[in-house]
């Protein structure tokens, strides 16, 4: 303890509240938070670099595994960018199937979030109930696509699997069951006193702050921002579906809960519309292995917000550059703002309320030279040489190994 009763407590990278590693350093006075700093990068796996060394077909599966919960979002966003470079038009049935899987993924993600939010405030019963209902969606997805997460349903030029009439029946039945359960959770969110006490007034983000800091997804929509990529910039089959963008004026975690519950109800209606309107036809078109040179940008409304992919091709089988900007990167900056002058007990639920997915977030390394107070981005070679020099100062010499490696390459 130093500085007249102020404690610095590390929240992460390992902490029971965080599902993925992330470092927050909080300064506390008693129970009140006085300052907070965020540090990202614990889940960096070098995916953007790995994409450049694999063909487009292999990249489909790699990009899908950026995140377990929004896997279809990343895969579809990537494939849409590639299809835009090639300039093909998808068959309508493929668009509808992609929309169906996307909405089922949104249902799965929001039910998961409800459970996690319940767990963070100590309400384990809500966790058990929502995750039991989530099993309905996961079994359905296993029947439709072949896997419970990381569906692998996309291929460049369409989808890989078709949907049979029996599966359509099952989907409709599952939607009926889930709609009834979600109505119960909405009534619970409106009536349960302890839940409302823990969730309202916590993590307040005003409309102006949300616009200024660039909050996306349900985090922004709960502060009154009416932004949804499905309405603003429709892709796949969303232009032909009828749905509302759910916003709330509560501006706190309670508002985010209500927004996500509202989105669940909208998703059920959208899935029903897709099953009704899906046209017959082929499910994929053939695309050559070598993608012509060009670049494209595509956006997708992942369950957490706006997902953004940039792909540049140079006429070969492998992409030249792939860049991913996940929604959590846009939302992480609002956490510090939301926790000003709040209690330590609010910390887990506020972090959970932006629905963090740190696996999506950690993409880029910027090297900050604290000696010269300058930032610069390094390429692969210079980063290796810098690393070798740094270790030499610590007494470990990698120079002979480096020579061997350059001889091999």
């Amino acid at each position, binding site marked *: 303890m130093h500085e007249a009763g102020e404690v610095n407590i590390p929240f992460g990278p390992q902490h029971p509240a965080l599902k993925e590693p992330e470092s927050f350093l909080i300064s506390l006075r008693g129970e009140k938070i006085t300052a907070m700093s965020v540090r990202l990068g614990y889940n960096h796996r070098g995916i953007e670099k790995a994409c450049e060394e694999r063909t487009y077909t292999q990249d489909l*599966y*790699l990009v899908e595994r950026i995140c377990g919960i929004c896997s279809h979002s990343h895969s579809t966003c990537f494939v849409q960018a590639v299809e835009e470079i090639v300039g093909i038009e998808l068959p309508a049935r493929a668009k509808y199937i992609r929309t169906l899987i996307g909405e089922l993924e949104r249902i799965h993600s929001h039910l998961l979030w409800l459970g996690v939010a319940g767990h963070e405030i100590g309400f384990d*019963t809500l966790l058990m109930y929502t995750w039991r209902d989530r099993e309905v969606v996961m079994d359905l997805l296993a029947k439709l696509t072949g896997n419970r997460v990381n569906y692998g349903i996309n291929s460049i030029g369409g989808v*890989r699997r078709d949907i049979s009439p029996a599966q359509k029946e099952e989907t409709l039945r599952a939607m009926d069951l889930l709609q009834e359960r979600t109505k119960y959770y909405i009534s619970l969110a409106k*009536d*349960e*006193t*302890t839940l409302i006490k823990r969730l309202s007034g916590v993590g307040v983000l005003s409309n102006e702050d949300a616009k200024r800091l660039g909050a996306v997804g349900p985090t922004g929509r709960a502060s009154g921002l009416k932004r949804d990529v499905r309405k603003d910039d429709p892709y796949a089959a969303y232009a032909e579906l009828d749905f509302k963008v759910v916003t709330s004026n509560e501006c706190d975690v309670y508002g985010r809960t209500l927004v996500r519950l509202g989105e669940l109800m909208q998703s059920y209606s959208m899935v029903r519309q897709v099953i009704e309107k899906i046209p017959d036809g082929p499910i994929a078109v053939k695309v050559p292995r070598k993608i012509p040179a060009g670049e494209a940008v595509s956006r997708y409304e992942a369950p957490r917000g706006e997902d953004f992919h940039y792909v540049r091709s140079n006429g070969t089988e492998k992409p030249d550059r792939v860049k991913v900007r996940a929604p959590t990167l846009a939302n992480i900056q609002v956490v510090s703002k939301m926790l000003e002058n709040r209690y330590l007990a609010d910390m887990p639920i506020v972090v959970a309320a932006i629905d963090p997915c740190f696996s999506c977030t950690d993409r880029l390394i910027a090297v900050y030279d604290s000696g010269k107070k300058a930032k610069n981005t390094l390429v692969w070679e210079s980063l290796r040489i810098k690393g070798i020099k740094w270790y030499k100062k610590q007494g470990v010499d990698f120079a002979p190994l480096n020579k061997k490696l350059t001889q091999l390459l």
Partner: protein
Amino acid sequence: MRRPGKISKQIIQSLFKKPATINYPAIRSGMPEGFRGKLKFHPEKCIGCKLCMRDCPSGAIEIRQIGEKQFEARIDLGKCIYCGQCVDSCLKKALEITAEFELARLTPDELKVIFNAQTKDNSSK
């Protein structure tokens, strides 16, 4: 109407319902058909074009020639991501996906499975 303990009715009802969890591994519910599990290779159909090797995202499958027009497939179950791209890429439908998913083994060597082009399937278990 705001009141604490609204969930009590559901809780009492749950006491008399069957539990939603099952006692695995005593009771196995299995996976639906069409689930992407372990690969199966039909050596008699393979022509050795190696398209599956080109398209595999993790380099898990290796096709080797062991005789005149006879090929064997070596699959590393540890590297395989069970995406099924090789099944789609194969021109002769020599690869097939089964729903077997309980593939844990105690050593990494046991995970390397070989499908031979002999009359008996020589897959090590």
